Every structure is written in structure tokens, then in C-alpha cells.
């Protein structure tokens, strides 16, 4: 309960900080929505010509792209530092968070809000509304699937970026796996053979951020819900264990840090 109060306070402070530059916040939000709409036009062109990819049509892509955008946006808004965790670790900037009487991981990743995430978050809902699959119970499933997909995504970021405790600066690797996660997440799962699917559920769990939540939103099944729940709990648990193990190895830097 204390952690929830703490998170609410930190998010409020982040929002107030972002609102200091309202024009910039709005331009990033609107710009990101426009960016996503233009990007999605590629899939409209593709399906206009080729109609179907092993049973997936443009309507399925609206849902998949939407849920991925919303989950990505949610993490950007509320846990923006998860994208920079390896940098924070390798530059010794964890010192600041370690000196505070709050959970280190939670405090670190929630201390930054990426304004453009609002554009991704909102775009996802619009994309779902345009998909032709919209129903009110589907919207409830959308929200649940988004929370679970965002949990998987945040856990994946923590997990991969925590490797910086062992290997130092990991910005290239982090960018590589982040791009792989997002790229594989927006492609129809039916493209991949069974070996590739195993990778997309485990090493790069893009399926748990794109196609599985999309399947759950289109129609409730216990199978897709359990896949999402197991994925979210499993990855979050693993990410926390790896971060804690890494934290034991952490060596403070001597640089003077000022967190604003």
C-alpha cells in the first residue's frame, strides 16, 4: 500500500514536471500519434494488395499494433527510466536511489516520464476502435491485456538492461533487443514456425506483447489469458531476481550526481 502511495506521488510529480513544457508535451503526444498512424498505413497498403497472411488480415493488425502501442506507451509514461536502466547502472547513477528509503528498482524506473508515451498509449485505443472488433467487453479485455503486456515489456526491459551489472555499458545490446521485441511484436504470429514461436514466447517475448494479447482481445480464451498471466508473473519475477542479484555486484561511482 505504501508503495502504491509512493508511486502515485512520483507519477504526479513527473506529470507536473512534464506539464512545465506544455507545448513540447503536446507536440510530442500529437507527433507520436501521427507517427503511428502514418506507420500503420504501410500495413493498410500491404493488406490492400495481399489481403491475408495465413489468416491474418488488416483488422487483426489494427488490434495487434494498437495493443503493442498502448503497452509501450504505458511503460514509457509510468516507468520511463526502464529504457535507460543500463545507462543508470553503468554510470553509477543508482547511488542516488540507493540512498533513499524506497524500493530501489521501483523508484529508479518510475522516476522518469517519456511524454511521447501518451501518444502511443492513446493511439492504441483509437487503433482498437477502428479495428472492427470493438465491443465493450472487448474494451475491458483490452485494458487487462494492455496491463499484462506492459508488465511483460517492463520486465523484459529490466531483465535485459540489468545485464549492465555484469557487462557494463549495454546500450547497443539494449537497443538491439528492444528493436527486436517491437519489430517481432507487430508482425502476425502466423508467419513464424514452431522454433521461432518458442523464441517469441521466451528469449524475446514479443508474442506476449502483440499477438497473444490481440487474440485475447478479439475473443476470450482461458489459454491466451493464462499465457499472458504466466508470462507477466514469470518475467516480472525473473527481472526482479536478476536486478537484485546484480545490485549485490553494484559498485558505486565517485561522480557527484544531481537528480532533477
Amino acid at each position, binding site marked *: 500500500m505504501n508503495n502504491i502511495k509512493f508511486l502515485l506521488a512520483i507519477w504526479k510529480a513527473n506529470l507536473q514536471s512534464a506539464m512545465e513544457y506544455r507545448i513540447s508535451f503536446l507536440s510530442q503526444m500529437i507527433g507520436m500519434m501521427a507517427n503511428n498512424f502514418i506507420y500503420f498505413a*504501410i500495413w493498410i497498403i500491404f493488406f490492400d494488395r495481399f489481403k491475408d497472411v495465413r489468416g491474418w488480415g488488416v483488422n487483426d493488425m489494427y488490434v495487434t499494433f494498437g495493443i503493442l502501442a498502448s503497452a509501450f506507451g504505458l511503460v514509457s509514461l509510468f516507468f520511463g527510466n526502464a529504457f535507460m536502466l543500463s545507462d543508470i547502472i553503468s554510470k553509477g547513477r543508482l547511488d542516488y536511489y540507493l540512498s533513499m528509503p524506497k524500493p530501489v528498482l521501483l523508484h529508479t524506473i518510475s522516476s522518469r516520464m517519456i511524454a511521447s508515451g501518451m501518444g502511443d498509449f492513446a493511439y492504441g485505443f483509437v487503433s482498437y476502435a477502428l479495428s472492427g472488433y470493438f465491443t465493450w467487453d472487448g474494451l475491458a479485455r483490452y485494458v487487462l491485456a494492455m496491463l499484462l503486456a506492459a508488465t511483460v515489456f517492463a520486465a523484459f526491459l529490466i531483465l535485459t538492461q540489468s545485464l549492465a551489472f555484469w557487462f557494463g555499458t549495454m546500450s547497443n545490446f539494449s537497443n538491439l533487443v528492444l528493436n527486436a521485441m517491437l519489430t517481432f511484436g507487430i508482425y502476425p504470429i502466423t508467419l513464424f514456425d514452431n522454433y521461432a514461436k518458442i523464441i517469441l514466447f521466451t528469449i524475446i517475448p514479443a508474442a506476449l506483447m502483440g499477438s497473444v494479447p490481440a487474440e485475447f482481445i478479439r475473443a476470450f480464451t482461458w489459454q491466451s489469458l493464462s499465457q499472458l498471466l504466466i508470462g507477466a508473473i514469470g518475467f516480472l519475477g525473473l527481472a526482479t531476481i536478476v536486478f537484485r542479484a546484480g545490485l549485490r555486484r553494484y559498485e558505486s561511482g565517485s561522480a557527484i550526481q544531481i537528480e532533477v
Partner: protein
Amino acid sequence: MKTFSKYWSIFQITLINSLAYPGELVGRSLMIIPFMWIFYQLWKVTFSAAGADVVSGLTLRDTLWYLMLAETIELGRPPVARTMSESVKDGSIAYILNKPYDFLWYQFSTAMGETIFRAMLNAIFGGLTVWLLVGAPAHPEGFLIAIPAVLGAWALHFCINAMIGLSAFAVEDVSAFTWIYQKLAFIFGGLLIPLDFYPQWLQVIAKALPFASAIYGPARLFVTPSLELFISVMSLQLAWIIVLSLTLALVYRSGIKQLTVNGG
């Protein structure tokens, strides 16, 4: 000639600098491998579903090699807009403006210096991946023929990105413009889908825009090289470079009048 040698030296220094961190250089370039693999999955299924070996004049192999070069052009270019807007925002532009060289030519020389090795490694990793997946390109000589068009593509990218970067003279943050430009280049440049697969009306529009000269033209020249295509791609590209570089010079002149540098 002396003026040219000045920018050639800047280009050489940046080129050597880009080799200072080989791990970083290789790490960035590995990104093309998952991209090419997923393109292979998508187009293999699509060609198979279409039940044809050739779609709009391209085979699966042509399509993959086309996408490899398109990605190499896109992933190879440095973030010029961001670099320029940062230098406007933090005032470091003042240190460049008082040097005995032209701001735009300096930026162009450094951008090209950063691009060369990055693009070469992308081409190597991307090329090896595609070779393993679909075999050698049908026209290996196309790579050499496409090189002038690839260089022209980076000049075009530079002109547009520099204009976006310079818009920081007027607005706080240019990131929204860079995202939108990037996605327009994806669509109208044919980065993810060759323009030949587009509806006819959209092809006509896209091929007339500068984005096609920056991505589609060089990539298509690589997979289906011919003298006619070379002349057509190069002449359209040259026309766009002239128009956009003149526009860039005008934007720069009007922007520099608004610049106020605080502190130092």
C-alpha cells in the same frame, strides 16, 4: 580547391573517429539481422500465398536484396536533425559558427564521415543474412551501379534532415518532425514494401516525391540494373538535390537571423 580540401579533412577526421569504438559500430549494425530475417518470413509467406514466383517484376530474392539495400541506406545515416537541433538548443552552435567554415558544409562532411563505415557494416551483415536466406543477388554488378545513387540518397536525406534540425531555431523540440519524416520516408520511399507493390495511383505519387529518390531508386537500381533506370534514377535524384539544397540554404539564412545564444 582549398575550400574543398577543408571539408575533405573534416570528413576524414569524422571517418577515423567513427572507428574509435569498433564494438559500438558493430553492435549498432547487428540490428539489420533480425530485420532481414523477419522480412524473409513475411515475404516468403506472401509470395507463396500469391502463388507466383514474380510479383510486379520482382522475385522473392530481388525483394529481399532490395530491402537489404533500403535498410542499409536508412540505418546507415546519422541522426543529423537531432544533432543540429541539440546544437541550436544548447548553444554549442556558437562554437561552430565562429569557425572559418560553412555551418552546413561542416555538418554535411561530418554526417558523411559517420555514415560510411556504419553503412558498410550494415551492408555486410544484412548482405550475409540475405545471402544465407535466399542466395546471391541476381545482378551482383548492380551493387556497384547503385553506389552513386546511394551517395545521392544520403545527400537528399541530409538536406531534409538539416531543414528539420534547423527548425529548432523556431520550435523547442524537433523530435515529432523527425518521427513523421521517418515514417513518410518509410511509406513513400518504399522502405518496408517496394513501391512496385503499391496501387498504381499511389506509385505515381510516391515515385515523384524525394523519398523515392532517397530509398526506392537506389534499391531498385541494385536489383534490376539497367542504363535507362540508372539515367532515370540519377536525373530525378539530382533534380531533387538541387531543389532541396537551395531550399536548405534559404532556411539556414533566415534561421540564423533568429538565433540568440545565451551564455557560453
